[in-house]
């Protein structure tokens, strides 16, 4: 399929380098096609993109990529960004979620099941990388709706009144509820990366100093629940749900507990970003 040259120029030079912008025209355009076709259109476009902007700069400085290696890496980042946005809109709208689920490799839920079998709840952390909405959608379908620590209304636990989500205290209240949800053996999902909230810890990420919200780590410490990092990442045109080793609980002082939790979490995220260009999305805001 050929797109008009001005459109391609606009997408690939004018907007795409600032991958974090709200401008999401490539995925909006491909929304009209069957998902598998849309993904291939995006792949073709990605090969025409010249690395520049913050993404290109990150590839050069943080990953040490140049020349054709940088171009190949950038094409994968570019493609995955819009492929992910496309999948996210299909899953969240609910109308064409099955097209996304059809891309999923078989999911091994045993890491989550093993933790839940202990009777304690589990904090599933994804970071703003990959396609984490897929896991929340799958859990909802399985009748295991998670309590989601964000302002999104979709895939939220039915006990939460999402009509209140614009209220200033909504997230604060959700964190307190999450504690009891975990104590009752429930699942809580969260993406703790990024400078959100009011209380931060200083940490190092990709060789740079960053701030991370203390709320998620405090919830984990107070509740004693295990934290299970997971990632929904692209493998070719398929999606793979992968769980990491659980974090904590640690028998340590609160300060040490927090430090270890943050170190393990950010270490996991950094590893994913270095290994798989496709997961570099929102995390770029951190860099």
């Amino acid at each position: 399929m050929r797109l008009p040259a001005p459109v391609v120029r606009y997408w690939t030079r004018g907007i795409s380098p600032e991958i974090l912008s709200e401008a999401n025209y490539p995925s909006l355009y491909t929304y009209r096609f069957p998902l598998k076709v849309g993904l291939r259109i995006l792949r073709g476009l990605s090969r025409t993109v010249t690395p520049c902007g913050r993404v290109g700069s990150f590839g050069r400085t943080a990953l040490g990529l140049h020349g054709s290696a940088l171009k190949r890496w950038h094409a994968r980042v570019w493609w995955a960004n819009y492929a992910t946005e496309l999948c996210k809109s299909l899953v969240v709208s609910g109308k064409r979620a099955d097209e996304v689920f059809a891309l999923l490799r078989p999911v091994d839920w045993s890491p989550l099941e093993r933790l839940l079998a202990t009777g304690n709840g589990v904090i599933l952390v994804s970071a703003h990388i990959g396609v984490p909405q897929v896991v929340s959608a799958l859990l909802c379908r399985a009748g295991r709706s998670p309590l989601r620590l964000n302002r999104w209304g979709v895939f939220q636990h039915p006990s939460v009144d999402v009509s209140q989500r614009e209220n200033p205290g909504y997230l604060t209240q959700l964190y307190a509820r999450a504690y009891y949800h975990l104590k009752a053996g429930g699942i809580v999902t969260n993406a703790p990366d990024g400078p959100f909230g009011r209380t931060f810890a200083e940490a190092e990420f990709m060789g740079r100093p960053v701030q991370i919200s203390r709320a998620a780590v405090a919830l984990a410490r107070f509740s004693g629940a295990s934290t299970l990092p997971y990632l929904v990442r692209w493998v070719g045109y398929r999606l793979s749900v992968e769980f990491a080793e659980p974090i904590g609980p640690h028998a340590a002082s609160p300060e040490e507990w927090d430090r270890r939790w943050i170190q393990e979490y950010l270490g996991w995220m950094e590893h994913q970003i270095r290994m798989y260009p496709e997961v570099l999305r929102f995390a770029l805001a951190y860099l």
Partner: protein
Amino acid sequence: MSPAALRPDHVRETVVEILLRHSTSGLARDDVADECPLIGGGFDLDSIALLGSILDIERDLGVRLREEDLTEEALGQLKGFVDHICRRLSAAHCP
């Protein structure tokens, strides 16, 4: 727990003390009113402070709160929150 500990004024006093300990809003004890919100003004607790307060309240008052107790309505004003805890205490001690 002694009957005196179940009295609403004792519960209120304990709750206020705990909330002030966790709050960073600078709210003075003399300025605490029944209408003070716990979050988004008044005590202005963030998520960590609210969690810490709830755990201290459970420990000091011997009450077990539940997830459904922590609605925005329950946390909207000090009086409503204290009333909520009193009801939980009464239910626990006078079933």
